């Protein structure tokens, strides 16, 4: 018996909402997101991954296994400028070896996601789609991502100071649910403005000289809270303002326009690009120091080559700028208690330094 075709994809923070929205509108198939990440996910992923592969690979693979069990038959994966570029092929092979029957699709090729390549991919699933139709929905999805990221930026700066617990998160959940029912540009904009107003109206009690910390580092561990042991939530509990640059908006379209500017800003430290997002993080370290931030947290999967290359340079920047920084490497064997201890000590250090 042939199974009913069903599309699925791995998790990355809240971005399953725009991705699901896009894929639903581009094809006639049913689209499901992978079941939420839990310890089970990473256990499954670790079990079937090469042991020294970076942690996002394991999470993605765990997501795929769980979603295949739910009946998915078509999987989507992207790619990037590091090991991420090989994820699709290797994961496809592992899953096929495990005996799953599915079709693997990739939306990126040679490091970049282009509209043309996406069109070719989608055409395989939906012969009737026109290039115009595709462009329309891609643009609409990009706007949705852009709005989500804008709201998230505001939340990160303020959630540590909410007067009513969970008020930000509850409202954001409501917003995401409403975003998923978007019908067009006008509907999306109305929803965005409505929730922007609501979120900005939430009561906060933020002192003028609160602690400010920047999160820099690799993209997956930055964007998927489960993989960084809910670092941002911990920081919010410590009443810290958090700034994070890495989000989908940045990676998909903002980065292209910023590379030249970033390179110029850190000329003293880097002559060349560092691969993946290494150079961006050197830039951010310098930028946040200039902006008067109190500390930096650099996160990466254990063994992330581009970030390992960037770390000594970031350390140098922080030395020159007298900027406190801690580095975290995440793996499936990371001890949560160890992270908490270091984070607490980091907080104490910043707090005492600030006086």
């Amino acid at each position, binding site marked *: 018996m042939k199974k009913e075709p069903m599309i699925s994809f791995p998790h990355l923070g809240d971005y399953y909402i725009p991705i699901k929205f896009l894929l639903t509108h581009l094809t006639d198939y049913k689209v499901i997101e992978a079941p*939420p990440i839990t*310890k*089970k996910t990473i256990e499954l992923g670790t079990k079937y991954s090469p042991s020294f592969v970076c942690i996002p690979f394991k999470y993605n693979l765990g997501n795929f296994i769980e979603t295949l069990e739910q009946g998915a038959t078509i999987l989507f994966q992207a790619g990037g400028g590091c090991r991420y570029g090989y994820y699709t092929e290797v994961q496809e092979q592992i899953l096929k070896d495990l005996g799953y029957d599915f079709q693997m699709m990739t939306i990126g090729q040679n490091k970049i996601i282009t509209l043309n390549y996406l069109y070719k991919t989608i055409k395989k699933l939906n012969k009737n789609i026109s290039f115009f139709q595709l462009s329309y929905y891609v643009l609409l999805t990009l706007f949705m991502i852009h709005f989500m990221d804008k709201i998230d930026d505001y939340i990160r700066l303020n959630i540590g100071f909410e007067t009513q617990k969970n008020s930000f998160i509850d409202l954001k959940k409501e917003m995401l649910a409403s975003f998923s029912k978007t019908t067009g540009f006008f509907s999306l904009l109305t929803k965005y403005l409505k929730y922007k107003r609501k979120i900005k109206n939430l009561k906060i009690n933020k002192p003028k000289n609160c602690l400010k910390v920047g999160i820099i580092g690799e993209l997956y561990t930055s964007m998927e809270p489960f993989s960084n042991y809910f670092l941002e939530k911990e920081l919010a509990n410590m009443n810290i303002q958090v700034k994070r640059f890495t989000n989908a908006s940045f990676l998909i379209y903002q980065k292209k326009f910023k590379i030249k500017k970033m390179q110029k800003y850190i000329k003293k430290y880097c002559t060349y690009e560092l691969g993946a997002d290494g150079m961006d993080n050197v830039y951010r370290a310098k930028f946040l120091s200039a902006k008067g931030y109190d500390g930096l947290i650099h996160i990466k999967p254990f063994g992330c080559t581009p970030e390992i290359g960037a770390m000594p340079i970031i350390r140098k920047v922080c030395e020159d700028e007298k900027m*406190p920084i801690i580095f975290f490497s995440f793996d499936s064997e990371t001890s949560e208690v160890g992270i908490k201890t270091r984070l*607490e*000590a980091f907080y104490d250090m910043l707090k*005492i*330094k600030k006086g």
Partner: protein
Amino acid sequence: MITINAYLGVDIGSISTKAVIIDEENNIIASDYIWTKANPIHAVKTLIENLEKQIQNKDIKIKGIGTTGSARKLIGVMLNANVVKNEITAHAIGTLSLHPDVRTIFEIGGQDSKIILIEDGIVVDYAMNTLCAAGTGAFLSSQAQRLGMNVEDFGPIALTSKNPTKIAARCTVFAESDLVHKAQMGYKKEDIIAGLCQSVVNNYLNNVGKGKKIISPIIFQGGVSKNIGVKKAFEQEVGENVIVDENGHLMGALGVAILSKSTPLKSEFTFKIMEADFDTKGIECKGCSNHCEIICVRKNQKLIDSWGNRCNKGALK
């Protein structure tokens, strides 16, 4: 007799449990140090009992309690502590109270090792070992066992070596197989032991101390600091004098005791803690496939605290 206001600091490490009682001027009135033996509750009970004996003849009122070390949360609940602090901050504060001019603290304990850099009396940078146990006390004790001797004798024996053997560092597994190899090749025992001390130092400096500017005065503490061989290896490697304080093992406890002075006590403390029956129980939450393990702390069979849940589904009480 005048009543002395005193503060209790307890540092519950993986291998040993330390406690101090200090007065308002940070003078140590009583202190003790015992093995944890993987039973922090029992260790703390014994320790408190020992402390009580030491202050029997004085009229002391405990005004604050602080806990630190890896079991700080559990013991914090048990003692009703007003300060529960991570060991990095606690060690820094404790050391600074005795050595205000310190710039670098090396700390090697049973299970972890850390480096703390201090500038103008405040912590500016720190690191804790993230990768392995190769640079810690546990490694030294396991190797002592292999060589059939007490780890306490390592220091003096290491000092007698004129030609320390090079032992592959980086990883306990490599180090151990290299040690066996060197022993079978006929290297002298004292040379091997001196080599081991050096490998601990090399591991520490390459791992925890990587990229850190080490400036003197340097203070070396934690259980391994009692090993004079390691101290000497540090001095050779760093090229600076390394200070080992005789109270080096108490710094964490001293630090939290000092910290507990600034916060008011939640409830009065009595030394009668032996009489209460504390136990812990781990239960698995069945709310989702996360299967969070929730630790429940019970006093006389009554639940007093619980933790370990990631969401509200697992909230007890």
